[in-house]
């Protein structure tokens, strides 16, 4: 099973619960007002069918409702003052909010339709009476789409169709009135006028047409609408609708906006992120944002960045912990490497290793236990972990930081008079010192270059500078003496030109060495290949002396060698007479 940290109890695991969902579609609530909190899950199924609203009591499935479209969010909220205080479940799906009370469908709220582009409306009206050619209609719609006009779903579908299917499609749909609807992207709640736990709450929802709507819980009318510069994806609300509130919204363009009661200028309090947000949580006054570039940022509610943490893998889900019995607040981040990290402030305080990538998480009260973490995984598993009563989270980084030794003070000696004088001198005469250094450096370079030119002039280097005879030489000595093997390697470095009529000869101290071949005739050198020429040398002394040996490559008729190699001979071992 999972390798567990010692702070969590593994209360329940079902790796094959076939529950495919995200954090937004998981919620914990006391929907029967019996003190036994239920887990409410909007199951995405396969994404096209089998979408269900599931309610778990303890570990058993209590009820199941089919959802028609893909759910995008689930919340519970109190919509009346009746006792027992049973909250309603709101499921956002497409342009609708389905409200369930006592586990029965209760109400369906539809978002107000949007204005249709007049040209588009006109086209469909003409189509109704067959006044327009369908191909012309398609071209006009296509032109509108390219200009950036937002079209209805029906028109977009028409543009995607094959030409031979168009007529049927138009005939099928032309008589139903054209409607333009948006899609809910995120859902949250906000208490209306009192901050009690079971106070009546408004629904707050973000939509694809870049708006935030606040709904009245009793009449289901739109209480307020705010337009945003981009599509909202994550929403976090606090405050009371009738008093004062803040809505923090992160959008698809990588910006976080803060909306206040009565203010319409949303760009005033804006946080720009480096990357797209993949999760946003708010704990107390701090906003924690996980981004696509594997970072976790923390901002104050004013938009000031407090810190950034780099994560080892990309984020798949985020959730806030606010565990009141121990006044422990933290942020849980699920990562694509199957780990779940818990950050208290910027410190990593715990790591949970899972068998699967966690895609949805909820921390809160489940059953009768306060500190419960419910997780759903990519392969459809459901995991429940309970925080131990004795668990303590040390506010210390688990990761390797700077070693402790770095903070200990070193026992530095006092500044001596010499040091002070030197510093003084350096400070006063910095210009002169710099100039001296530069002059010396220039002279050094000059000297190096001069020596180089000299070497070139006398062909003292092992690579030929003569363009007519491009050669490279390397020489090696092998053996320990008194007889050595001396090998010379010659390579013609030109691409096309071959070299011929060359000689190799050696310059050495005749008292010390005796070369068995004093002159080597070099055959024609084909470009690119390396030729090896060997000779034996006998060392004539046993006094432990050694000398340099020079190798020349000569061309008949030239007094200066083409190339020269210098080999320093090793000290020879003395002859052992047996």
């Amino acid at each position, binding site marked *: 099973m999972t390798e567990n940290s010692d702070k969590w109890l593994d209360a329940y695991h079902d790796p094959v619960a076939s529950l495919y969902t995200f954090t937004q579609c998981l919620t914990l609530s006391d929907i029967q007002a019996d003190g036994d909190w239920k887990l409410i899950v909007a199951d995405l199924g396969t994404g096209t069918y089998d979408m269900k609203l599931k309610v778990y009591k303890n570990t058993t499935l209590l009820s199941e409702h089919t959802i028609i479209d893909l759910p995008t969010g689930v919340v519970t909220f109190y919509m009346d003052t009746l006792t027992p205080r049973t909250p309603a479940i709101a499921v956002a799906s497409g342009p609708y909010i389905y409200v369930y009370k006592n586990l029965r469908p209760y109400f369906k709220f539809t978002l107000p339709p949007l204005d249709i582009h007049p040209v588009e409306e006109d086209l469909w009206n003409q189509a109704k009476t067959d006044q327009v050619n369908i191909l012309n209609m398609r071209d006009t719609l296509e032109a509108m789409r390219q200009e950036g006009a937002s079209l209805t779903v029906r028109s977009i579908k028409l543009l995607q169709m094959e030409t031979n299917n168009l007529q049927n499609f138009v005939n099928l749909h032309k008589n139903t009135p054209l409607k333009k609807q948006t899609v809910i992207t995120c859902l949250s709640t906000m208490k209306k006028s009192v901050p009690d736990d079971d106070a009546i709450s408004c629904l707050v929802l973000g939509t694809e047409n870049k708006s935030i709507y606040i709904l009245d819980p009793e009449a289901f009318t739109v209480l307020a609408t705010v337009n945003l510069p981009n599509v909202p994806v994550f929403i976090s609300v606090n405050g009371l609708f009738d008093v004062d509130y803040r809505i923090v919204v992160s959008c698809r363009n990588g910006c976080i906006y803060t909306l206040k009661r009565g203010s319409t200028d949303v760009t005033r309090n804006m946080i720009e992120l480096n990357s797209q947000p993949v999760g946003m949580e708010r704990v107390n006054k701090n906003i924690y944002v996980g981004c696509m570039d594997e970072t976790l940022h923390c901002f104050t509610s004013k938009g000031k960045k407090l810190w950034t943490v780099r994560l080892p893998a990309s984020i798949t889900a985020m959730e806030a912990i606010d565990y009141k*019995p121990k006044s422990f607040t933290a942020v849980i981040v699920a990562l694509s490497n199957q780990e779940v990290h818990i950050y208290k402030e910027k410190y990593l305080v715990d790591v949970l290793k899972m068998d699967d990538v966690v895609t949805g998480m909820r921390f809160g009260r489940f*059953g*009768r236990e306060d500190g419960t973490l419910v997780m759903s995984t990519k392969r459809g598993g459901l995991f429940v972990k309970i925080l131990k009563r004795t668990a303590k989270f040390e506010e210390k980084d688990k990761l390797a930081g700077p070693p402790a030794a770095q903070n200990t003070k070193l026992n530095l000696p006092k500044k001596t008079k010499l040091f002070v004088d030197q510093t003084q001198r350096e400070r006063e005469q910095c210009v002169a010192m710099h100039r001296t250094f530069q002059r010396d450096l220039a002279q050094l370079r000059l000297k190096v270059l001069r020596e180089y030119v000299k070497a070139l002039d006398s062909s003292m280097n092992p690579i030929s500078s003569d363009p007519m005879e491009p050669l490279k030489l390397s020489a090696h000595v092998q053996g320990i003496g008194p007889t050595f093997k001396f090998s010379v390697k010659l390579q013609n470095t030109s691409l096309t030109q071959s070299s011929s009529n060359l000689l190799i000869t050696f310059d050495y101290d005749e008292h010390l060495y005796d070369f068995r071949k004093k002159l080597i005739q070099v055959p024609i050198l084909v470009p690119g290949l390396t030729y090896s020429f060997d000779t034996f040398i006998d060392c004539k002394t046993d006094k432990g002396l050694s000398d340099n040996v020079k190798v020349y490559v000569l061309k008949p008729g030239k007094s200066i060698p083409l190339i020269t190699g210098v080999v320093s001979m090793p000290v020879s071992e003395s002859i052992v007479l047996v």
Partner: protein
Amino acid sequence: MPFFDALARWLGMKKKEVNVMVVGLDNSGKTTIINHFKSPETKNHDIVPTVGFNVEKFKSKSLAFTAFDMSGQGRYRNLWEQYYKECDGIIFVIDSSDKLRMVVAKEELNLLLENPELKNRSIPILFYANKMDARDAVSSVKCSHLLELQSLSNKPWFICASNALTGEGLHEGVDWLTDQLKIVLQKKKK
């Protein structure tokens, strides 16, 4: 007057007194179980979540029990260990329908067993797998398996399924506990 005490005890009028602790998670039925043993005139009709703890007295066949009915709520659980020293027996109540929190019960039991006051004492532990009437309740065997009671070897223990609302199974458990406590008392005398 020790002579009269001995006489009364011999005549069966005065019973030996023992202290037992009743522990378990919140909402497992500890107070309801104790309530069942009380005499009809002292019975409570409304059971509310216990705050802190209650001390209740009741009698079995041959012993007079003083029960420390501890609160099972998370924030009061650290109170339990204060009373381990003076108790002669422990009644551990489990909500057998709460599968999710079985691990929490196990964790609390382990903490109890690891406590230095109890670790080396051979103190009898009676487990009630309570709420056996609930629809999704697990059997007492399964319960003991989930709590890994088989590994509990240095203390006498006994588990019985119970229903504190009707009293089913309660006396079976208390009879076992009485027998165990009598053995302990006899050993003490020697």
